[in-house]
């Protein structure tokens, strides 16, 4: 092949250019400077940046909510301290041997501090105003403190699909709550074959689906329970599908599936996303290979006959009700009550008393209305109250009302009234002590969330750096070798162009 000067020149130039491009193209910081450097990498970078931005927003939300919660916790702590001082002052005032001098002033100071805790602000927003954060939620006009906030619960997103509630509405903290307590005993309704599947588990019910049941002998069948309404239908369909099985009711509260022919272990599983077996809690805990469900807990309603309740003997007797500490207690006669509804009606006929089915469990909620304390007790020679699990008492929570009443009693020297208010003050102390834990619990939730978010941020940031950043050592090595190549091609070009035949002629 002929090699001309121009060829040498062209190829030298091409080599020099290529070496230079390679050297100049090495970026010590970034592996991807434009999408074409690594299209899928660039796409991932864009996606990661978006994820990180979202994650950082979550972090900001958590951090912000945490500060809010910290301030709330401090305010509640101060309020609890205030109530403790109030109790000490009340105890002092209740003792006839102590002077009442100066106590009213101390109570007024505490009242004012309490008000400032209730109107605590953070970052220009009132902590206890619900969603009305711009105006002071508690306003005192003489002896009346009114709430101007609302009951809104505020929350902020702290992760995809997870939010953190960060406020306690003032109504639930410093507002008045009626005195109420929940009965101590579940009113357990006896389960029988006519009990409907929808009534089970406090009325949350069981949606019948398809079950695959294997008896002790290894025979198996798919039992279609769809459309079954009562426990009897459930029993009949299972026994029809597998004649070796017997379905029994144990103690009027649990189902048992037993293989009476082969006697081996019975197994059951839900078919295709069903949840019948799971809801019934069928497990191999029964004796001799039988399956035992969990407590079926049928729902209690106003129409439930009292006779269906376990441990309740009709007719019922009488219950003593004491409102606002009145003695002797009012007598409520339950002997005519046949259903749960009758019983509730008998109680609710007493002015200032409300008894209703509690939201959860087969229990009742007893409350005194109009800020009265409430107490239920057995009457002499009649244990009806204990039998129903209704013995209990509760004081109303009136954070400002109690304090103002106490101050009035101290000012007027009414030591009897002071003594009357003592249980209320104690209830108030419990109220704040338990509330104080709420922000703390949420704070620890927030801390966990923050740790997770930080870890995720770290992972994503390192992924970002792994994809987008150049490996500096490698890049440096590449740079040095590219530089060496570039220098070599320059030297070579300088030398080779000097070589021509003319020098030797």
């Amino acid at each position, binding site marked *: *092949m*002929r*090699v*001309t*000067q*121009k*060829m040498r020149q*062209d*190829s030298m130039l*091409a080599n020099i250019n290529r070496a230079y491009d390679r050297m100049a193209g090495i970026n010590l*910081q*970034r592996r*991807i400077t*434009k*999408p*074409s*450097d*690594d*299209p*899928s990498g*660039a*796409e*991932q*970078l*864009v*996606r990661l*940046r*978006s994820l990180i*931005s*979202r994650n950082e*927003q979550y972090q*900001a*939300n958590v951090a*912000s*909510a945490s*500060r*809010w919660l910290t301030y709330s916790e401090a305010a509640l702590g101060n309020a609890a301290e205030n109530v403790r001082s109030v109790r000490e002052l009340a105890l002092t005032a209740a003792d006839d041997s102590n002077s009442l001098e100066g106590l009213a002033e101390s109570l007024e100071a505490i009242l004012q501090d309490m008000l400032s805790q209730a109107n605590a602000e*953070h*970052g*220009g*927003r009132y902590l206890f105003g619900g*969603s009305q*954060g711009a105006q002071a939620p508690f306003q005192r006009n003489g002896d009346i403190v009114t709430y101007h906030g609302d009951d809104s619960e*505020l*929350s*902020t*997103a702290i992760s*995809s699909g997870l*939010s953190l509630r*960060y*406020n306690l509405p003032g109504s639930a903290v410093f507002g008045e709550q009626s005195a109420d307590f929940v009965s101590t005993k579940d009113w357990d309704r006896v389960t029988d074959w006519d009990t409907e599947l929808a009534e089970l588990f406090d009325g949350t019910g069981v949606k019948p689906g398809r079950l695959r049941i294997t008896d002790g002998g290894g025979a198996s069948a798919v039992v279609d329970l769809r459309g079954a309404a009562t426990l009897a239908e459930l029993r009949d369909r299972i026994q029809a599908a597998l004649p070796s099985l017997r379905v029994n009711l144990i103690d009027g509260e649990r189902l048992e599936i037993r293989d009476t022919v082969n006697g081996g272990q019975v197994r059951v599983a839900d078919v295709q996303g069903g949840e019948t077996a799971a809801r019934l809690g069928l497990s191999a805990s029964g004796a001799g290979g039988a399956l035992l469900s969990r407590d079926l807990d049928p729902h209690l309603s106003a129409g439930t006959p009292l006779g269906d309740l376990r441990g309740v003997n009709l007719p019922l007797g009488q219950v003593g009700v004491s409102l606002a500490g009145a003695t002797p207690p009012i007598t409520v006669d339950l002997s005519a009550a046949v259903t749960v509804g009758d019983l509730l009606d008998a109680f609710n006929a007493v002015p200032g008393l409300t008894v209703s089915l509690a939201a959860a469990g087969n229990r009742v909620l007893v409350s005194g209305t109009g800020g009265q304390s409430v107490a239920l007790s057995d009457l002499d020679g009649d244990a009806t109250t204990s039998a129903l699990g209704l013995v209990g008492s509760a004081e109303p929570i009136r954070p400002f009302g109690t304090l103002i009443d106490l101050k009035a009693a101290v000012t007027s020297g009414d030591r009897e009234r002071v003594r009357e208010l003592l249980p209320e003050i104690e209830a108030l102390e419990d109220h704040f002590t338990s509330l104080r834990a709420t922000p703390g619990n949420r704070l620890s939730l927030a801390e966990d969330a923050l740790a997770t978010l930080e870890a995720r941020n770290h992972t994503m940031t390192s992924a970002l750096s792994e994809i*987008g950043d150049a490996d500096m050592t490698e890049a440096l090595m590449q740079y040095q070798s590219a530089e060496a190549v570039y220098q070599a091609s320059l030297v070579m070009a300088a030398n080779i162009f000097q070589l*021509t*035949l*003319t020098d030797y*002629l």
Partner: protein
Amino acid sequence: MSGLFGLLETTKLTIFAQEMSLGVINHNIANASTPGYHRQRVALSARGSLVGLGGTFGGGVNIEGIERLGDRFLSSQLGRVSANRAEQSALADSFSVIETIFGEPADDTYGETGLGDAIDAFLNAWQPVVNPEMNAEDADTRGLILEAANTIAHRFRDTASALQSEAASLRERVAVGVREVNALLGEVAELNLALSSGSLNDSARADFEDTREVKLQQLSALIGADWQVDGEGKLRVYSGGRVLVDHVSAHALTTEAIEGEAGVGGLRLLPTGSRDTMTLAGGELKGLLAMLDNELPEVLSRLDALATRLIERVNAIHQAATGDGGGGIDIFSGNSASSIAVNPALLAHPEQISLTGKLPDGQDIAAAIFALHTESIESAGGLTLGGLYSGLIGHLGSRSASSGQLAQAAERLEAGLSQKLESSVGVSIDEEMAQMLVVQTTYQAAAKVITAVEEMLDVLMTAL
């Protein structure tokens, strides 16, 4: 004619031939770096024999003419490769401009932000509202939201208008290219005319052919032109299945705008006076037209899709929000990347922005807007807004990378071929030097022959 005088005659021819060779060597050296120059040689042949007293001997050297050396096939092959290289380079160059327009992947370390970041910032802008401390002044939060919305609108419009101006510059480059092509076609036709006249000498003809080949190569690189010389030595230039130069007549090209999608009108190329669009086989213009007709509209329509979905979803959410004095009004006006703007009514009355409003399903507006991060949008093929954007960047990256790689490969092929061509037609100074030595020595030898003849004649003369 024979004898000593005959020898003098023969030697004279030798000297002429060497002088001419030296002249051609000189011409070669002078043109060693002239583009397209094909090295030349004096074609010599032995002259018919002379009859002497003792028998016959050679009659010296004949000058046949000046030859233009070179491989005709290589030249048109190089043309095709150049056409491909020019097409891919045009695409790659334009793509790298578009990549710069998007500025992705952005990196906080260098203070860069991309369009994607602006969208994220906007979707996050409501969060301060649920963020307990930052909402002390609702006016501030509304200002932040407006700011974020404005940034998005600006980014979209800036990106769209940068893409539009890239389209304008592509159109300009096509226009310049077409003018260049038309000039070249005319020049080739003129050269054909010159070459067909009988009055040219060999050297001048060779030089004209060199010039014409340079023009043809340029045409290849521009429109993927191919050429053929028929039996009568007439040259035809083709491109896209059409004869553009038929010996001495040239057909100029022209362009016509076509309606394009996404506001980027493409161009079509057609011969003057014809209605048939030409489909080029290669060349820079093919690359530019492809960019203008397909690639750029694709990028713009993806950008528009993103803008449109964002506008639709954000507006729908804010329209549905009730409570807190705001809501029920569009946040964005416009319906594409180039028309998106913050609703002017909001700019005048920011209090119409719903901060803590609720949607009919009870969701907070802040949560609903934030959920757009992950909401898969049906009208966007189930993608999220972020997915649309990263898809756009991925598409851009892979198209740019592939055209860049093709351009590089074509460049290497072109370099290899042009080396091969250069090897065949180029001037090697060393070779010319060696040739010059031969010519010089021959000339000296011929001079020696004259001296010898003269001496011999002298001997004869004195003997008489």
